């Protein structure tokens, strides 16, 4: 049963990925990056402590994107990341095609993910959260009731 369940989810999400890969174009890419900027700006409003926690001791921040980012886009992200930290942050860029479209900014203990691949994964995570309780939890509830 578990296998069947996983099979259905895998096929559906695999199909979603395929379609997204086909349909992605510059406008999608741009929309995702705009959302990423908005999220980083929102993070700048957080309290100082939360912001300090974002950075590791060496202050490195990794940015992974589905395709290579243009120089203006890079400097925009560097600027936004710089606004979060009191000290100058060291930002490095990387490309990972499996992200489909968009980019992810990885701080030391948090990641801001604005990629299509992550949105597909989010369905899987959401499913685990909203799915009917699996057998074991029903059992646990029954035991607690005893």
């Amino acid at each position, binding site marked *: *049963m578990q296998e069947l369940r996983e099979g259905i989810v895998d096929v559906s999400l695999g199909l979603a990925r395929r379609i997204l890969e086909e349909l992605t174009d510059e406008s999608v890419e741009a929309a995702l990056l705009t959302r990423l900027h908005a*999220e980083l700006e929102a993070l700048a409003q957080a309290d100082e402590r939360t912001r300090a926690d974002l950075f590791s001791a060496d202050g490195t921040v990794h940015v992974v994107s589905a395709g290579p980012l243009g120089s203006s886009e890079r400097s925009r992200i560097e600027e936004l990341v710089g606004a979060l930290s009191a000290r100058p942050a060291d930002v490095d860029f990387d490309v990972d095609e499996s992200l489909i479209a968009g980019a992810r900014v990885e701080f030391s*203990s948090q*990641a801001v993910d604005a990629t299509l691949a992550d949105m597909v994964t989010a369905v899987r995570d959401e499913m685990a959260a*909203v799915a009917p309780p699996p*057998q*074991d939890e029903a059992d*646990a509830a029954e035991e607690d009731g*005893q």
Partner: protein
Amino acid sequence: VSVFEAASNTLDGLRRAARAVEVKPRVREIGRVLHAGDGIAVVAGLPGAQAQELIAFPGGVMGIAFNLDEDSVGCVLLGADTKVAAGDTVHRTGQVVRTAVGDSLLGRVVDPLGNALDGGPEIEVEAYHPIERDSPPILQRSPVNRPLAIGVKSIDAMIPVGRGQRELIIGDRSTGKTTIGIDAILSQRGTGVVCVYVAIGQQASSIARFVSALRQRGAMDHSVVVVADADSPPGMRYIAPYAGCTVSEYFMQRGRDTLIVYDDLTKHAETYREISLLLRRPPGREAYPGDIFYIHSRLLERATQLDDEHGGGSQTALPIIATQAQNISAYIPTNLISITDGQIYLSPVLFQSGFMPAVDIGTSVSRVGGKTQIPAMKKLAQQLRLSYTQFRELEEFTKFGTTVDPDTKRTLEKGRRLRELLKQPAHQPIALAEQALLLHLAATDLLMDVAVVRVREFEDAFLRAVRDRLGDLTARIAEGETLSDEDAETVESLAREVIERIGPGEG
């Protein structure tokens, strides 16, 4: 649940998930691998990680959060550490380690996560339960009051084990510890007791031998074998006993009687020491970490007899410990002795002198089992223990060639026959009622007519005759009747008949 229902449940879940998911950037907690190897990984980040939480590494490898430090988390990996590299991004799962449980596991050989290792069909898992659970609260427990037959005469008579008891099997290497574990499982055939055998850090070849011994004798259909062999990552070896306990608990919670054999906890303690040293926890005595007592006490506390209100199920635990040079006062053995309700000590000296099973009756003890013995056996047991100990002392004394009076000689001769009777070949457990009849004969003078070397032959012939002709008597004894004078007479006359048939032999 039918396939159709499962599929439609899944589709409903997908539909709801698709509606609930927000198409916007996600902010998630992540960690980065600082270094990995030797079955562990240290991860920076993950500020919200909880103790024992499952951490997902790339390549499908999972790890358990063990050490929560200020800015790093020490994880024990449950898969190959070669798939994990420094710099990899990891994330939390919000889950604890779970293992497969259910009836579909019976007859199977699985790893601690419930994956089949026996090449059989995929296991249809009914549920996944956390491997670490609280032991049943005091109010749900009831005293140990029913016997669990180990099938070995010397144990069932003098060191009886009750359902829900924890009895340690302790001894040097190759003194027959595992054999007693197997005999105990074989002895549960047809009794409805579910058996779980947990192999920790053993050679794959000895596990294969063990499984085929169970299979050949038809004991696999009521058993589950949980294996983390010497080749498994340390994390798997560490969780194996807890996983096995959860598998067995599932049946206990449903009112079944269960037996679990941990083979062996010495290797488990060593695995935990290995993990702890690699994670740089402070070493204590013999380099074991400070909580080495707790890892075994919390495991064995889960063995119990539940009261009727909670189904009346039980879990009997037989942990195995290997000693070195008969040193039962080493660190881990003394820990286990203090946690358990008694120990069966196997002596290499007895083993080498051909007394098998090599149970040292003087050093072995059962703290709660005595109350559970079937009445017929209980009556005999105390006398037997005493006369056997007396015989051992006399024998030691007369080794120096002292001439002895006829009375002493007689005690010695009787003792030798009793000792012969207590010997038992491996993997041939005997039912409690049959044992009681044999030991009744040992208490009389009947065996004096059988040569010491022919006691074994007599025993076989006698047991065959009992199974043929005294089936109803053994059934009554098993139900709790004592041996009446009349019954005793029947048994003795049958024994005389057998002795006549096989002849006295040399003696």
